[in-house]
């Protein structure tokens, strides 16, 4: 079936078997993987081929460790127009519109070079979105850093940690602001487990008329391959294999050239250029170039169409003419796309590109057969079956083993905590104010105050304004809502229950704004899959993810797996210390028929009644923010989340929002009731009086993170209607207080002045992370 391979290659491309094996090893190919390459080719690979296989078969590109488990996430829904395996998931949202969305990580590059790592993370996920035919209309970012309030050695020093936070936030903003896509929210978490392996996950959302969806199915023999966008340089070579598919060791500086450099201005031009090409129906196929650049995009386009491609590397516009073939093939220079056009349309494609000042080169042609052939200086440098590169890489069912350390978590007494001020009649209010100022709970205004959240005129609820971001779709009253959530501590404690809870939380957040959750995406951030304990965490989490998303009716439309999130930089060698908390980050997309009816977090009106909807307060301090804040060992048992109740709760929230009954809605999550009250009161600049109806341990009442609970406020004349909706859906509700005043008051327990809370809430993050602020040993800020 395969054609006879060409056996003569230029001398500088030819390797002996021994040398090829050695070079393959340096590039990250295992011995048996190298053998598989030789088998696929029927001979020793050339230098270019070896480079291509090493990148394409890397963990980052091939998902070789996770593939067998990801199959469990498969789901079908009539709404899904493109699912896992495509560049981004696409769902039908009605009115003839489709929405593409996906989340992706850029963790390792962001540690090595925070600004560019984060910036190119934004650029990469945006290309995934507009490759599908959609115009990007929003981004969200989920960031996890070390704890900047703790000063350690080397990379764990406060100065180093602050530099990472600063660089990442500037990078996300620098790219997103300049490319003109609004940031509508996300999460920022500070936890020492991410000190030497921060997580930078970016989600992007795009919208298109359904008929503009670009699927790589239209190619024909003779179609012309056109490289659009930036010239190809030596930046980012090996990013996928070297950075994303290995653990970190010392020598970070050496890896800096592996990080790509972003050019958001070029990306903006490229977006407009591609959208015009789609509108004119000039393309037969398109693929973005991210990891593995030209090697990946040519192989994937050819493989998807079951055809071959002839590519002339001399035609590629280069930054440095001296680049070797393998460098051209594996370069991860940003802001590039590979488009396929019918020969008659090529001139028009080039004219559109010229109008947007986007460089374009005709570099190849679709041919019959299955071979990807690459030429350089007139000679063949690679000749391989496209499918072997793109789709026939190795897959592993790696050994899994429940970590012995899990047993320790179960015996920790988590639910009976000594709260300063509660047990000893001390200053509970003072303690709570300090707790609310801890950077993970405090308002993230410092972060999103550096992001444009307004551009393209659709933002209804921007960062921090609602439990989910809400954007009105162009030319429609309809809006989409999106929430992005993770919780590494819960998932370390119990990967299955933790993952279910995270899914439930993202689902609930979308419901809180009044939207109907319809689909999900995920970014699975885990440690080294070659360790059985980590593989167990990953597999356990994926299984729970599949189950929870099916139960809640939010099918997985795609996602990203980021493994090897481990670091020995400045730390010990014990796996418990080096790997990050297992951190699946879940994005849930919802639709709201009238975006103007979206419900925010802020308390609105004096006299509004506060209701607690959903479950009662259950023991929920295991893995909680309080446990972390008090520096207690992680432990305890997570109360199971009732997904059926979550689904009913979402129905009530949606109906109440559509009926205009709600002035605010905010779920109780990280930090418990006090944190939820603080968010809503500070944002609305109005106090609240809570009269607890439950006889519970005060620590649980104030700080429990047990799931399925939402605080809503409603004007008194809507109470009856809300109660009826809850009764119909069998969702418990309890009248717990009234909006108003200048204090946050929990009767019999706590009175905080709104001013103190606002101060704590707004200063928590900048005090901890802003390098331009000097903090004294006592936490005072000197400006």
């Amino acid at each position, binding site marked *: 079936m395969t054609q006879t391979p060409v056996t003569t290659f230029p001398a500088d491309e030819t390797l002996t078997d021994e040398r090829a094996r050695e070079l393959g090893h340096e590039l990250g190919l295992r011995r048996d993987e190298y053998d598989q390459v030789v088998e696929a080719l029927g001979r020793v690979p050339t230098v270019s081929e070896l480079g291509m296989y090493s990148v394409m078969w890397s963990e980052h590109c091939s998902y070789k460790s996770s593939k067998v488990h990801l199959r469990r996430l498969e789901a079908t829904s009539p709404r899904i127009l493109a699912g896992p395996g495509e560049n981004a998931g696409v769902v039908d949202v009605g009115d003839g519109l489709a929405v593409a969305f996906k989340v992706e990580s850029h963790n390792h590059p962001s540690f090595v070079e925070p600004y560019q790592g984060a910036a190119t993370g934004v650029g990469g996920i945006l290309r995934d979105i507009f490759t599908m035919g959609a115009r990007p209309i929003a981004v969200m970012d989920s960031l996890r850093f070390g704890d900047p309030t703790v000063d350690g050695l080397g990379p764990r020093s406060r100065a180093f940690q602050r530099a990472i936070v600063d660089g990442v936030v*500037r990078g996300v903003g620098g790219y997103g602001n*300049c490319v003109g896509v609004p940031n509508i929210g996300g999460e920022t978490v500070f936890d020492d487990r991410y000190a030497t392996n921060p997580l930078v996950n970016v989600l992007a959302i795009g919208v298109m008329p359904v008929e503009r969806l670009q699927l790589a199915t239209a190619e024909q023999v003779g179609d012309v391959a056109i490289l659009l966008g930036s010239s190809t340089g030596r930046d980012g070579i090996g990013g996928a294999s070297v950075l994303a598919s290995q653990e970190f060791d010392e020598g970070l500086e050496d890896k800096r050239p592996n990080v790509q450099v972003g050019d958001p201005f070029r990306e903006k*031009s490229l977006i407009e250029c591609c959208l015009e090409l789609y509108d004119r129906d000039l393309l037969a196929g398109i693929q973005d170039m991210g990891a593995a650049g030209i090697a990946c995009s040519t192989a994937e386009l050819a493989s998807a169409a079951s055809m071959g491609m002839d590519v002339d590397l001399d035609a590629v516009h280069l930054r440095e003419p001296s680049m070797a073939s393998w460098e051209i093939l594996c370069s991860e220079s940003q802001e590039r796309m590979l488009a396929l056009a019918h020969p008659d349309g090529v001139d028009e494609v080039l004219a559109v590109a010229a109008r947007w000042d986007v460089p374009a080169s005709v570099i190849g042609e679709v041919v019959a057969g299955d071979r990807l052939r690459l030429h350089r200086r007139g000679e063949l440098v690679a000749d391989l079956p496209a499918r072997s590169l793109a789709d026939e890489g190795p897959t592993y069912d790696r050994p899994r083993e429940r970590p012995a350390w899990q047993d320790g978590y179960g015996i920790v007494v988590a639910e009976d905590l000594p709260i300063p001020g509660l047990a000893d009649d001390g200053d509970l209010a003072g303690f709570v104010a300090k707790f609310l100022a801890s950077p993970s709970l405090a308002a993230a205004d410092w972060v999103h105050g*550096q992001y444009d*959240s*307004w*551009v*393209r005129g659709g*933002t209804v609820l921007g960062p921090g304004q609602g439990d989910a971001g809400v954007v009105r779709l162009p030319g429609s009253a309809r809006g989409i809502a999106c929430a992005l959530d993770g919780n590494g501590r819960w998932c370390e404690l119990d990967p299955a229950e933790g993952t279910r809870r995270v899914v439930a939380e993202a689902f609930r957040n979308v419901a809180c704004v009044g939207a109907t959750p319809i689909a999900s995406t995920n970014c699975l951030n885990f440690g080294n899959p070659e360790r059985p304990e980590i593989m167990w965490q990953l597999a356990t989490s994926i299984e729970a993810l599949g189950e929870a998303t099916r139960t809640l009716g939010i099918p997985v439309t795609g996602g990203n797996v980021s493994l090897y999130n481990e670091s020995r930089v400045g730390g010990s060698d014990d796996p418990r210390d080096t790997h990050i908390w297992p951190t699946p980050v879940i994005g849930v997309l919802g639709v709201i028929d009238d975006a103007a009816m979206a419900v925010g977090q802020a308390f609105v009106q004096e006299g509004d009644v506060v209701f607690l909807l959903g479950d009662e307060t259950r023991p929920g301090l295991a893995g909680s923010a309080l446990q972390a804040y008090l520096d207690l060992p992680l432990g305890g048992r997570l109360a199971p989340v009732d997904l059926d109740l979550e689904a009913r709760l979402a129905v009530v929230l949606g109906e109440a929002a559509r009926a205009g009954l709600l002035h605010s809605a905010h779920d109780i999550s990280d930090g418990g009731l006090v944190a939820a009250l603080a968010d809503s009161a500070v944002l609305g600049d109005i106090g609240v009086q809570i009269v607890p109806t439950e006889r519970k341990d005060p620590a649980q009442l104030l700080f429990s993170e047990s799931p399925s609970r939402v605080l809503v406020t409603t004007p008194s004349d809507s109470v009856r209607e809300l109660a009826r909706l809850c009764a119909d859906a069998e969702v418990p509700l309890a009248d717990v207080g009234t909006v108003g005043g200048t204090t946050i008051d929990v009767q019999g327990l706590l009175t905080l002045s709104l001013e103190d809370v606002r101060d704590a809430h707004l200063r928590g993050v900048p005090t901890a992370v802003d390098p331009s602020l000097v903090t004294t040993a006592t936490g005072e800020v000197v400006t």
Partner: protein
Amino acid sequence: MRVGVITFPGSLDDHDALAAATRGGAEGVGLWHGDTDLSGVDAVVLPGGFSYGDYLRTGAIAQHAPIMAAVRAFAADGGPVLGICNGFQILCEAGLLPGALLRNSGLRFVSRPVFVTVERRDTPFTRGFDHPGPWSVPLKSGEGCYHADPATLDRLEAEDRVVFRYLPGDNPNGSARNIAGVSNEAGNVVGLMPHPEHAVDDDLAGGDDFLAMFAGLASDVPEHESLSR
């Protein structure tokens, strides 16, 4: 009333400015940086964004775009010209407005709603406001610190050419004398750093305090000439 919005390479809020003009009751007309005429529009908006990536000084490249010759002639003839954010920076670079925009005093990009007062309500872009405010409007810029030498600032104030000011004590970027926007001598060219086009719809996060700007522009009350003094 036809309001032209110029798209430069890297313009981002051109789409929003067109929508705002339409919402204000005018007809929005897209204009292209490479063109040399203004298609007969009655007013011109230079929108926000990062023209040419702002990799050089903000606005420094865009002011040389072919269409800018037509904008200069239009402005000299008394035609209403509005520069928003990057558009303001371009107008300063083009010499159509005095002063320059420097990096924010906090050295960070600032994105948040600000309150501004409308200091002068007889320009084509402020005649729609029925009182000086303060009005809420989104600000989003890294280089929004308005700067001019003291003599120029004195003259601007003496000639009543400060059109918008941030509230005292809430100056987001270190702008001299809390200046958020200025006009040329004749009052027909106005530039400001905040984004009025993001504040024209009460259903959106930016509110609608600045719908008055576009509604006022669309109401074709005075001829250009009546503005000159």
